[in-house]
């Protein structure tokens, strides 16, 4: 094969750098039974430097998954339970008067960590949500008159419970858009559930080994950015995003009145980044349409606004995305 030098080099680098992916997946699978998609999405988010919003009923191993990931990466982990009386200072930290030193000293909050699990994010009021989302966007926190950088890698996993909506503060569209992926977690399969029972009854909970350092992740992120994306793939991504804004131009007239607003340019960026990360996970130095399709649902599902008409007809964003993928021509 007479392959061009850049791609050949890149493929070699990716093969080297992504060697940890298989190990990481094996370690994750030791602890988490099933939930292959969740593990893949966590990796995609971790490698593409994007935050993840998890939606699923309680008891689906959301907390365990991120806890395991933190232990595999040898990173710090915080879990914050969002409640209606939570204050921004409870997250970011505050200044406390030290009697010993006779001055105000900074007490950093639980946000100063590598992996944050914001459990039930929609139970806290808007001011707390926006404090977290600002930290997610800027990667820094200001306490008093000093700005502190957050540690790298910094990954926020927020969870939402889709069934209990009473007394919640739903995240506004602008804030939801800042999550790169919205992963919907489903129930495990029958055989997986059997295995979960066995583990629990025998009280034999396997432990994941630490195989990575935070620096490895930072280095891998740099390689992910170098994954080659052809112009045809870029056009394919743009077509997918544009079809949510102008469905009538893509033979999707039936969804014209169902979509109140389409995906933002941030969706295009996230789709491209997540596709690159997915290609990296699959140990490829270039993106193919399969990669785009694999991450499309997670990237787009929270970025399409549904109209009242869609809600009345029980049309979900999942259906719209599937139809888009079945209609937009693959390059």
């Amino acid at each position, binding site marked *: *094969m*007479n*392959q*061009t030098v*850049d*791609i050949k080099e890149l493929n070699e680098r990716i093969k080297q750098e992504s060697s940890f992916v298989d190990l990481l997946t094996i370690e994750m699978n030791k602890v988490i039974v099933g939930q292959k998609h969740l593990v893949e999405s966590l990796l995609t988010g971790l490698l593409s430097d994007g935050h993840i919003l998890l939606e699923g009923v309680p008891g689906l191993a959301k907390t365990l998954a991120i806890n395991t990931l933190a232990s595999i990466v040898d990173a710090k982990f915080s879990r914050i339970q969002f409640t209606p009386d939570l204050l921004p200072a409870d997250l970011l930290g505050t200044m406390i008067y030290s009697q010993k030193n006779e001055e105000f000293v900074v007490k950093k909050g639980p946000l100063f960590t590598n992996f944050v699990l914001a459990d039930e994010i929609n139970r806290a009021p808007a001011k707390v949500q926006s404090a977290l989302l600002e930290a997610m966007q800027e990667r820094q926190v200001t306490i008093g008159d000093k700005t502190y950088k957050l540690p790298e890698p910094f990954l926020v996993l927020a969870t939402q419970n889709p069934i209990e909506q009473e007394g919640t503060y739903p995240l506004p569209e602008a804030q939801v858009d800042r999550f790169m992926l919205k992963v919907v977690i489903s129930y495990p399969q029958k055989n997986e559930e059997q295995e979960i029972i066995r583990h629990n009854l025998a009280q034999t909970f396997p432990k994941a080994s630490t195989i990575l350092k935070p620096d490895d992740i930072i280095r891998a992120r740099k390689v992910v950015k170098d994954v*080659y994306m*052809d112009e*045809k*793939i870029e056009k394919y991504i743009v077509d997918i995003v544009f079809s949510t804004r102008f469905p009538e131009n893509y033979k999707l007239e039936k969804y014209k009145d169902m979509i109140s607003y389409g995906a933002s340019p941030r969706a295009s960026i996230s789709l491209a980044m997540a596709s690159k990360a997915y290609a990296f996970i699959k140990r*490829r*130095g*270039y*993106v*193919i*349409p*399969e990669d785009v*399709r694999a991450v499309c649902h997670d990237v787009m599902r929270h970025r399409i606004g549904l109209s009242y008409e869609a809600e009345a007809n029980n049309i979900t964003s999942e259906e719209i995305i599937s139809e888009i*993928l*079945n*209609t*937009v*021509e*693959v*390059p």
Partner: protein
Amino acid sequence: MTGKKLLNAKILPALLLMFIFPAIHIAQNVTVSAKLDSTLMVIGGQMDFTIEISQPDNIQLAFPNISDTITKNIEVVRESRPDTTHLDNQRLAITKRYRITSFDSGLHYIPPLRFEYMEGELARRAETQSSALLVVNPFTEVDPSKGFFDIKLPFNLPFLLSELWRFKYWILSILIIGLLAYFGYYFYKKREIPVKEIFFPTKPKEPPHIMALKSLDKIKSEKLWQSGQVKSYYSQLTDTLRRYMEDRYNFPAMEQTTGEIMSALKYQELPDKNLFHKMETVLSTADLAKFAKYEPLPDENDNCLISAYFFVNQTKEEPVPTREALEKELKEASSEDKQEERD
């Protein structure tokens, strides 16, 4: 008193006097007269009441204001516009007609009509003679003591076809439209080709393999990879194959990735197992060329095109012969047999 008795006893002498001395009034050089078409009218009938004026052309004469009645028993149906004629001796003859009617029987008095005008500084007046109109009731008066009677039924006149003659053009038009509509509907129902096809005939679609082979010939003749356009070569090649698979096997190959296409092909009955692997090689090589800057060797490029030709030729659907074609073939065969027997 009935109309007839009234006519004989009192009214007749008065009417005779009126005819002998017509209602003319001459005021110096202005003459006005009023006359009825007849002095006798049946109740509800109509006749003209005519006013004639002769006057110098330099005088402005004001007509009396007659709106809808002349007297309380005589009604005006309509009035004509004044008809003015210029005479040679600088005079004008003006005539105006009122169509009148009355619904009250009896002798009705019509008072003189007054016309006012200015003669120099003096105001003058001209008058017509008074006249009378006898309105008679031709029907016998109803006597309630004789009992009540039903309202008369309408007359039932026999229908004659000749009455329709005046509507001949309408009837003819309706018949023609009806016939056209019937024949239009008949031909619409009995048509073998859609109406749209009659006006905008579409070219019959070629079978998928013919289109694919044509497209592959075009790719071959364009010599794309030879001129360094490897990406375009593989894009056209895969597009041709995907379009062929979409038409041939009815799955949306144009909207599917290589993996999805291969999964769909698994469920198709391919005549040769090698075809599946050949297609997998072509599509994955094309993916590398399209998305990974991969430049295959010349042999690979040629092999991909050969595999594409092979796939299309091996999987092409033979057209099912039509009934007409089969009958024709059978006829030809039997005629050949007969010919052989004769020989």
